[in-house]
């Protein structure tokens, strides 16, 4: 290599040298860039970012675009679909039902999750794992499958629950044909499915509360309720807020349970946003109106998210 350099004319040698220096500085620059942890982290996240952009961001933007077209998707009509929905009685009924469904279900999921988490936390370590595993089963079974099983239990004509009630001499209950019982049934299934998520989150939060706090409280003469109120709850507040927010989003967007069990009936009285959007968009062929219906969830959840996350940040700063 050195021999070769010697045989070159001086300008050529200069060019080669400059090239080599440039190449080495590029490599050095690349090394420096790669040495930055944030750059590496970004590159490693890039595939995920691309997947989310193509599977979440693009469809979301596309549905916003769709919601501003007319029924035949040939003309831009701005907020016309939203104005139309706001003028419909059935839509307002869907708003009311979605709120009842989501708030009731999330409240009971959180309550049941909290109680069971405490019960399991107080079990001896040996038995805990068994109970934890069993109680997680509803969350592990695919929702469409478990909803179908529940539908069989509530079957309008041959309900297994009614069979049991009848064998004890009770009247049968119109689980799915009475609109109010139908609402109860879909909420019950949602609670059954979602409570284990709260359980596992709360259990993890309970495990992270320092034992010394309880010991100090015991020395001060605090009873169980006082310990729960003044130690456990404040220590868990952030995790409660985040799980409630997450569950609220998932429950508001629920589709499977209502679609499989009642398909929105009887008399449209169990429709939630997602099933009503499906009815309008896919079954009736009005995709823009369906998109507009599903987008109504967005501002509601965005407002909830802002308030809940603001509280979480505030408490985080207080602790920090």
């Amino acid at each position, binding site marked *: 290599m050195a021999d070769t350099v010697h045989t070159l004319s001086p300008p050529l040698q200069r060019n080669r040298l400059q090239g080599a220096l440039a190449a080495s500085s590029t490599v050095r620059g690349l090394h420096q860039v790669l040495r930055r942890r944030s750059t590496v982290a970004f590159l490693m996240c890039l595939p995920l970012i691309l997947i989310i952009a193509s599977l979440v961001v693009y469809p979301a933007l596309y549905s916003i675009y769709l919601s501003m077209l007319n029924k035949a998707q040939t003309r831009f009509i701005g907020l016309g679909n939203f104005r139309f929905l706001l003028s419909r009685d059935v839509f307002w009924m869907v708003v009311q039902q979605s709120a009842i469904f989501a708030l009731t279900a999330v409240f009971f999921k959180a309550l049941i999750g909290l109680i069971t988490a405490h019960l399991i936390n107080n079990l001896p370590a040996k038995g805990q794992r068994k109970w934890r595993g069993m109680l997680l089963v509803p969350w592990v079974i695919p929702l469409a499958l478990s909803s179908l099983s529940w539908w069989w239990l509530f079957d309008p004509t041959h309900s297994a629950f009614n069979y049991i009630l009848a064998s004890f001499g009770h009247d049968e209950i*119109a689980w799915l044909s009475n609109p109010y019982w139908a609402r109860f049934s879909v909420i019950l299934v949602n609670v059954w499915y979602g409570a284990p998520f709260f359980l596992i989150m709360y259990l993890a939060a309970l495990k992270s509360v320092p034992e010394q706090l309880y010991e100090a409280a015991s020395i001060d003469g605090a009873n169980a309720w006082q310990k729960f109120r003044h130690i456990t709850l404040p220590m868990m507040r952030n995790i409660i807020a985040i799980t409630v927010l997450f569950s609220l989003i998932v429950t508001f967007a629920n589709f499977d349970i209502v679609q499989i069990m*009642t398909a929105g009936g009887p008399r449209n009285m169990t429709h939630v946003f997602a099933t009503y959007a499906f009815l309008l968009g896919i079954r009736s062929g009005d995709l823009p109106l369906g998109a507009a219906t599903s987008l109504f969830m967005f501002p509601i959840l965005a407002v909830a998210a802002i308030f809940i996350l603001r509280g979480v940040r505030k408490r985080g700063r207080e602790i920090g």
Partner: protein
Amino acid sequence: MTQSRLPASKRPTRRQVLKSAALGSAAAVAAPYVSGVYAAGSLSLGVWDHWVPGANNTLTKLCNEWGAKNNCEVKIDYITSQGEKDKLTAAAEAQAGTGHDIMSHRDWNIRIHQNVLEPLDDLIAKLIQQYGPISPVAEYLAKIKGTWRGVPTAVGSQVKPCCSRIDLYKQHAGIDVTEIFPADESKWDQAKVDTWNWDTYLTAAQKLHKAGYPVGLPMGQTSDAVDWVGALFNAFGVVMVDAKDNIKINSDETRTALEYLKKLMAVNPPEVYAWDDAGNNRWLISGKGSNIMNPPSAWAVAKRDNPQVAANCWTHPMPKGPKGRFVGQLPQFYGVWSFSKNKPAAKELLLYISQKESIAQLVQASYGYDLPSFKSMYDLDTWKTVEPPVGTVYGYPPRGDEQTSMLGFPARSDVGAQIYNQAINTVMVAKFTQGNEKLDDVIKWAEGELEGTLRA
């Protein structure tokens, strides 16, 4: 750039070119269908997955036969309608502008995807020339703005007439449905046929309810419910929206029909408000039910699961009302996507599987469930020979004075689609009969909903 080799005097003017093009297009539209057997290449089909075991095989066999003759590779994907997966697939392909060449479309889907479906006027003209008039319901659903965008297929197409228990009707209502509707139309006595009307149906339903074998008429928001109530509304002369966008639901006919339904729903099991499309089938198969309004699928399952019930089932026309005898029809169609890469081959294949010989095989494979949209094909042997009892589904294709109906007609089809899919008719009935809302309030609610369907 290529220079024209014609001398300037012989070069066509722009006007001449346009005129020739216009004449050519007109001739192409007006010309009779000419088969061009040059279908080589490949074709892909996305079609409805038949619930009758083995029925898909017959369609596959027919397509493969045609493919072998025409040197065309045919690939078929059977897509279930469970959870509307077929509709979701069609919607995705229409939005993406890519997918199968031929897609099957249920009920209103031709209208929904009209802008991305190839015109099939030439094909339909040929079939009408061969087999005579086509069902008006099929025309309402697939002929959009004067252009056929889909060809009706027998596969999965159905009507929903009465399926009655012969023994229970005889024993508890004193009616022999086999005598009124024997398995030979030439033996039908019009005077007896006329006795089978909605009043008779109600009286019989009350007796059967009293005897512990109620009729089972769904009142949910799925197609079985919408179709039978739609047929009843037609029989009573109820019009929801007319062809000129006038809302007509506030009428004496509507009041009469709803008052009638109040009496009829009182003798149905209370759970009918939650039934899906399988609810009435299960009711009949269980042996508790005396009558349902359904294609012969319930009978076919009973044949396997409860043969004693199947042996006593008789499918026959719907009751007659003041404005005639109507039965709900739900046809299926095949459409060729405008983005298909082999449109001529797609049309050739559709023509082949729409021939009476092909239809006969498809009907046989489905034990008479599949119903062609050409009345001239109702003489196929399957409906005469299927048993038990022999002739049990002879009355399945509309015969005599029975006309097919579709909820939504005569409104323009995009309005009809909304009325049908939102089940405005059954929600009205449920509000009045189950919710005990006032008749005027129910009609007012329906007016509001119908006004919403007229949105552009």
